[in-house]
């Protein structure tokens, strides 16, 4: 049995008096799209930061591809593509600077694929990142997250505040990524209809604790009320929104 892509065990994280993550245990197997949903401040981003190795686990363990992301950032981050709501690309870079700079870090960078994505998204090579619209910045972030065909694509609220066309691009990227055999997507979002469209496994987090983590079909069946098969939105309100 191959190692899970992500294995989090008993992860707890506190910021002062606030417990952001409380004994979180989560396993994500290779392949498929995993949706991570929860209210604001539930701990989704903190969990993703631990997966990326940007925060050290105070207690518990985090393993990504069987490695510790804090002690082996090179081995872990080179296999992850990441896009977040808080697009923090350096505004002073031009699009081609960003691509050239990012390429240096990923041995598997595919120039042709990067160029295909850039032209598909209509990004001008000479444009500075700071002059791009929010949607174009998200597209630029998507180019550098996908161009090396990462084994794990991490999307942290990627489409919040974006127009429907950019959201469609992001969803298409998710689908394209999973179409490549063996790749995995972890998709955190408030837009539950989007998660419902693409996720085949959903994890709900509430006040730092995992409340549900199962295949989407199983969750829906478990909440079936007679003939009515509830939407993810209804299940979310029932399990998390009632907090």
């Amino acid at each position, binding site marked *: 049995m191959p190692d899970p892509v992500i294995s989090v065990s008993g992860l707890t994280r506190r910021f002062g008096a606030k417990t952001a993550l409380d004994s979180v245990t989560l396993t994500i197997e290779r392949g498929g799209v995993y949706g991570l949903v929860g209210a604001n401040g539930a701990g989704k981003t903190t969990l993703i930061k631990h997966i990326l190795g940007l925060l050290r686990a105070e207690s518990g363990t985090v393993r990504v591809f069987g490695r510790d992301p804090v002690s082996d950032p090179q081995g872990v981050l080179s296999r992850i593509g990441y896009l977040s709501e808080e697009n923090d690309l350096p505004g*002073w870079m031009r699009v081609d600077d960003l691509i050239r700079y990012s390429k*240096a870090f990923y041995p598997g960078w595919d120039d042709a694929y990067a160029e295909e994505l850039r032209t598909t998204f209509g990004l001008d090579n000479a444009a500075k990142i700071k002059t791009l619209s929010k949607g174009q910045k998200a597209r630029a972030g998507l180019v550098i997250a996908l161009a090396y065909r990462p084994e794990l694509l991490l999307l942290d609220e990627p489409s919040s505040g974006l127009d429907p066309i950019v959201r469609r691009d992001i969803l298409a990227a998710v689908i394209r990524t999973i179409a490549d055999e063996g790749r995995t997507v972890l998709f955190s979002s408030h837009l539950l209809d989007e998660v419902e469209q693409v996720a085949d496994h959903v994890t709900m987090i509430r006040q730092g604790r995992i409340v549900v983590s199962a295949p989407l079909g199983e969750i829906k069946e478990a909440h079936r009320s007679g003939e009515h098969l509830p939407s993810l939105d209804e299940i979310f309100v029932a399990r998390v929104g009632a907090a």
Partner: protein
Amino acid sequence: MSTPAAAIAWEFRTRHRWGLIAIAAYLVVLAVCRVRLSAAPEYHSVDTFAFFVVVPLTATFIYFLAVFSYGHGGDLAGRQSIFPPRMFTLPVSDTALAGWPMLFGTIVMALLWLATRVLALWPKGAEVPTVWPALLAASLLAWTQALTWMPYPLPGMRVILTILWLASIDAIVLVALHYRAHEWMMLGILAPNLPLAFFVARYAVGRARRGGASSVLGPQSSVLRSEDRGPRTEDFRSPARAQFWFEWRMYGRTLPALVAVLLPFELAMLWIYAEVPPLVYEMLGGILLTPPFMAAFVAPAASAAMTPFIARRPVSGGSLIAAKLKAAAASTAVAWQMVLIATPLALHFSGTMHIAMAPVDLLIDVFGAPRAIVLLLLAFLGLIASTWKQLVQSLCIGMSGRPWLVKGSVFATLCAITMLGLGFGWIVTDAHRFSVAWNAIPMVVAAAAVVKVIAAIFVISRLRTPNQLLIGVIGWNVVVFALFAILNWSVPGLLLSSGFLLFLSILEVPLVRLAAIGMWNRCG
């Protein structure tokens, strides 16, 4: 809160309530001391006044400067205005945005002076002014507000302009005091500052509100656009090169740019003061201290915590830090290259070379040519290393990403400088104290070196990478002993003991601070 003015006042009061409570408590203590101790003559000495009034009130003054100029939340070394951007969307005029904080600051500074005048135990025979110190404090605050709220084309320019301008006001006041100017004269000199500063502040806020920070030499530079339009450069050969390029473009060019701006003015002074050797020496000292001095202002921006974008680079934390250290080294090298090329040329063409060489000849006479050359090289290398050290030594604090630690370290440094300054004055004015302090220097240096070694052991024990740890320890020892050997050879033991030089060598090598950078999370 029915008016914008009341809301702005409420924000100052609420956000800084603990600081204001501490200051009020201090003033109460001062009042109690005034009532209880005013009859005792020993409490009216200059020393007592310095420790119980000057130090706390200087700290309070600096605190108010930070509070009313919004210096707590802004990037002083950056180009953008430090006026809080969230306030730009308030439905009030530029006049109100700039005016109310300025008015509140003026009132508070006036009250601070009033309280000091009434409550402090002034030294016997001191002529206590009536009003003008309040006006001086308010003027300094008003100009600090105006100049720090202004957007600038260059990073670090805010700090330079503000220091120069405030120092000019201080110089005018000192000249006036030297000539024993009357209270009315002082008021006449200082009063125009408030309206002038207000007009500048209103313009600054208006400009910042409408996005007026255009860069000249920053990464977004308009000057550099033509270069940017040139042919695309080749791919980076390694992640380390890409990361070095990033650090250089982000922070590396700022120090050379600042030195390039200041250096011509400083060198021009060599022509102006060519006939006055003491001033030539002062100017040379100023020129040689420009890179380390400017580096201190560039360091906060370069030492900021890694952004998530950088923290996600698939390289080790050590590689990311190494890129910062290399970019700082390149920045230092370029800045010093300008100084080391331009200064001898300026000395030659201004006809002041013989003045500059006189101390070198004296050094050769005293120590002999080889030792004198080594000492001079050591001095230059020390200045160059000190520039690099200024750029990187606060990385261990800045990269923690903890604002309280960054601000706390700045406050602690300011307090330490104030205390050291006052302590120095207290020591040198008394022969006995001076003698005791002089004899204690080796012990102080030894104690500091021991503290540093203990800190090194603590920091190194918390690092998780044994190989880097071993390389670091070996490297540190090599550098310390090399420095010790050079010092021991070039400074004869008759002048300074070997033990003293060893401790000095330990203190000079910044191992602990550099090692501590790796202790934090990648993203703060």
